[in-house]
């Protein structure tokens, strides 16, 4: 009658995501912006339309750019700067080279437009006739998507010093909604936009980031985040802020599930401006009543292990490739390297041998990194080989080089380490196979790819194990959990998972020893106490099981299963009165908990039997 369930935990690694520019409304459409090469170039007729479209969305009060470009007076003061940055394609910031595939919100000036800026500056930046001036663009004040359903604010500001190198700070936003919400968009208000280079949100359902704070609400430093997760859902969503961007609204059926108590972690890239600033971001959450029905997957190619770049190497190449086991629609792409990145290329070789450039960034600049959304989703059939080829410059010619003189640089999470990552946001695009199945096939192939690439990587081994365990292949899962535990012998999560797999395979004694390691390393680990309770119970060591289930229930008072198993163990040890109390609590916590219902009935039946023999 005792029903014992073990639960699995997944560990995922995330790195920062941010999104490419999306333009705010503009009165002009692009074809009208093609220059006609007039003899005399004026602001009102020739320059304003380009400026309003490409520059003003950021160059206006309250936005990220350091000065406004909304009027003739604004632009005249910077006429030569504008011509120079346009010629060097420093501004507007847009990393990808033009190719066959188009991205949303491309911000690339034509050669003709650049020539106009130059001509205008050289002619002394004349204003022109008032009647030529197009209307000043109107921007939505405040929240770009209208009043949010909920606004969350960072509890404590972060003090950014006046000088120093780039600063990466993470803010934790706690949520406490009464029920699950479906989030269609999150608008990030980063605070003083002029010092925030980009910001993005990661979902932390297990509060795994809180331990990194010195004091509650302080936030914590770090460029790349690792967040534990018990499922694979959150990484497919991208919530970002970057200068000039408007929030991305997920289409119907692709909303993010936000459960009661989930944390949102905002990762920010800050740059000192010359004066000290107080940064206190807020988030506007927009809900939808349409739950998710489509679940995009983030495919990750990476080869950090190959990153061991000798000082002075100006063209250090790193590659990786992955063959798609199922057809997908490619929605967005996010290439990521740190300060030594130089030339980043991603290609797809289709089964028919044809090749597509997915993205090419000939002059990488971390400061303008972003997620690039394709104008139209790209179909990549099963068997397509996705490849990345990144080139790094660790010479002193690379001005972004964090070391002077250059030093050996290896892969890692610190800003002075290097990274070789490429993410593709894809939607499984079935054909004969159902989407959720092709999603699992994809994720398992990715996990295998990761293990092959990094056999001594703890997370890679752990994740593949978790994936295999989730589809019931405990024997295979066990192998990978064992490697994970070899790599980190006292890791609570890996020992808990290994214990869970051993338990499922019937080796309860070995499970107990792993689970004891887990609870010793992390005494407040409710899941490990719960699993340990199960292991004891299956060895009929009910007194010890009761202690563990009680601890799991104490640590997680909302856990109906912990209460149910506590009740069951109490019943097994003969304490029917207390068993009934806990089973009732379990049913109250989760009226759908049929196991608790069954056990409660059984306990009641036995109690009535014993009182009326």
């Amino acid at each position, binding site marked *: 009658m005792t029903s014992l369930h073990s639960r699995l935990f997944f560990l995922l690694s995330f790195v920062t995501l941010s999104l490419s520019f999306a333009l705010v409304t503009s009165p002009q459409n692009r074809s009208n912006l093609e220059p006609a090469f007039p003899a005399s170039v004026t602001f009102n007729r020739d320059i304003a339309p380009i400026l309003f479209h490409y520059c003003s969305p950021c160059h206006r009060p309250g936005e990220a750019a350091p000065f406004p470009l909304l009027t003739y007076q604004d632009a005249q*003061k910077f*006429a030569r700067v504008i011509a120079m*940055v346009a010629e060097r394609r420093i501004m507007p910031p847009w990393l990808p080279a033009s190719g066959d595939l188009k991205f949303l919100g491309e911000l690339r000036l034509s050669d003709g437009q650049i020539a106009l800026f130059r001509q205008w500056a050289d002619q002394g930046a004349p204003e022109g006739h008032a009647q030529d001036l197009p209307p000043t663009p109107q921007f939505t004040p405040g929240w770009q998507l209208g009043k949010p359903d909920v606004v969350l604010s960072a509890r404590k500001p972060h003090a950014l010093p006046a*000088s120093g190198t780039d600063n990466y700070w993470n803010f934790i936003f706690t949520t406490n909604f009464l029920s699950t919400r479906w989030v269609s968009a999150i608008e990030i208000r980063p605070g003083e936009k002029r010092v925030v280079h980009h910001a993005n949100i990661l979902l932390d359902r297990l509060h795994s980031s809180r331990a990194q704070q010195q004091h509650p609400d302080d936030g914590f430093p770090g460029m790349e985040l690792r967040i534990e997760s018990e499922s694979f859902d959150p990484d497919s969503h991208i919530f970002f802020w970057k200068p000039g961007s408007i929030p991305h609204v997920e289409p119907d059926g692709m909303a993010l599930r936000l459960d009661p108590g989930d944390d949102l972690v905002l990762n920010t890239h800050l740059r000192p*401006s010359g*004066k000290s600033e107080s940064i206190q971001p807020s988030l506007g959450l927009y809900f939808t009543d349409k739950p998710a029905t489509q679940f995009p997957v983030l495919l990750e190619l990476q080869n950090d292990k190959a990153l061991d770049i000798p000082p002075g190497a100006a063209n250090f190449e790193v590659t990786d490739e992955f063959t798609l086991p199922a057809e997908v629609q490619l929605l967005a792409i996010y290439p990521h390297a740190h300060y030594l990145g130089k030339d980043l290329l991603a290609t797809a070789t289709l089964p028919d041998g044809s090749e597509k450039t997915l993205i090419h960034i000939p002059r990488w600049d971390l400061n303008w990194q972003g997620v690039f959304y394709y104008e139209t989703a790209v179909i990549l059939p099963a068997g397509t080989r996705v490849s990345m080829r990144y080139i790094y410059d660790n010479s002193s010619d690379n*001005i972004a*080089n964090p070391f002077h003189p250059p030093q050996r640089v290896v892969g890692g999470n610190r800003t002075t380490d290097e990274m070789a990552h490429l993410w593709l946001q894809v939607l499984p695009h079935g054909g004969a196979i159902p989407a959720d199945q092709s999603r699992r096939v994809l994720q398992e192939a990715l996990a295998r790819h990761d293990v092959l690439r990094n056999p001594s990587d703890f997370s890679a081994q752990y994740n593949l194990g978790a994936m295999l365990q989730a589809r019931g292949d405990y024997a295979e899962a066990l192998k990978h959990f064992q490697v994970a535990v070899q790599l980190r012998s006292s890791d609570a999560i890996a020992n808990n998972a290994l214990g869970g797999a051993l338990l499922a395979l019937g080796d309860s004694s070995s499970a107990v020893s792993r689970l004891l390691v887990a609870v010793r390393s992390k005494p407040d680990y409710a899941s490990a106490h719960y699993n340990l309770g199960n292991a004891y119970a299956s060895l009929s060591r009910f007194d010890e099981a009761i202690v563990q289930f009680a601890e799991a229930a104490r640590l997680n008072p909302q856990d109906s299963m912990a209460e149910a198993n506590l009740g069951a163990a109490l019943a097994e040890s003969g304490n029917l009165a207390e068993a009934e109390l806990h089973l009732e609590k379990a049913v109250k916590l989760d009226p759908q908990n049929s196991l608790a219902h069954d056990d409660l009935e059984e306990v009641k039946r036995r109690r009535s039997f014993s009182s009326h023999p």
Partner: protein
Amino acid sequence: MFVGSTPRKKHWTPFPAVFALLLFTAAFSFPQDTASGVLDLDGRSADPFRSAGSKIVVLLFLRTDCPISNRYAPTIQELSVRYAGHVAFYLIYPIKSESSDQIRKHLLDFGYHVPALRDPGLKLARASQVSITPEAAVFSPARKLLYHGRIDDWYVEFTRARRAPTTHDLADSIEAAVSGKPLSAASIPAVGCYIPGLP
């Protein structure tokens, strides 16, 4: 055009002959009465060279809205303190449309404790042969222009900065001027925002 490797473009803008003459003479000496048109923040006529007495004079050209000169604020403030014994530092705001109130706010926001002057007629800018913010000019106690140009090599071009500078051109020039040694360079192009109205 203000990037180190690119030669400065010859670009003739007509201006009154008296300024052209000043530009010419400034390379050799700076007559004490040429600072007329320079104003303090109360709108009074000011002359940094007269008030500096026998000290070396360093003029730092800034504008309130230039992101690059703004990022240099802690460096400039630190240099002004480090060399306070030998050098009189002045912040020079050459943009005509920047008001005294804007400049006062700027000084407060960026923690400057350095005297600030307005140069709406670009007289000091021309005498210093500068065209960018931030750009520095170092004058000997005899008011000879010893150095003009970048503070250091932090910025390589607009929006592209090193993690930290690898040269310290202004500090080196001041050290040389203080010790009476020859300067290694009389001018190194600066990276930043153009000062409108100058060639």
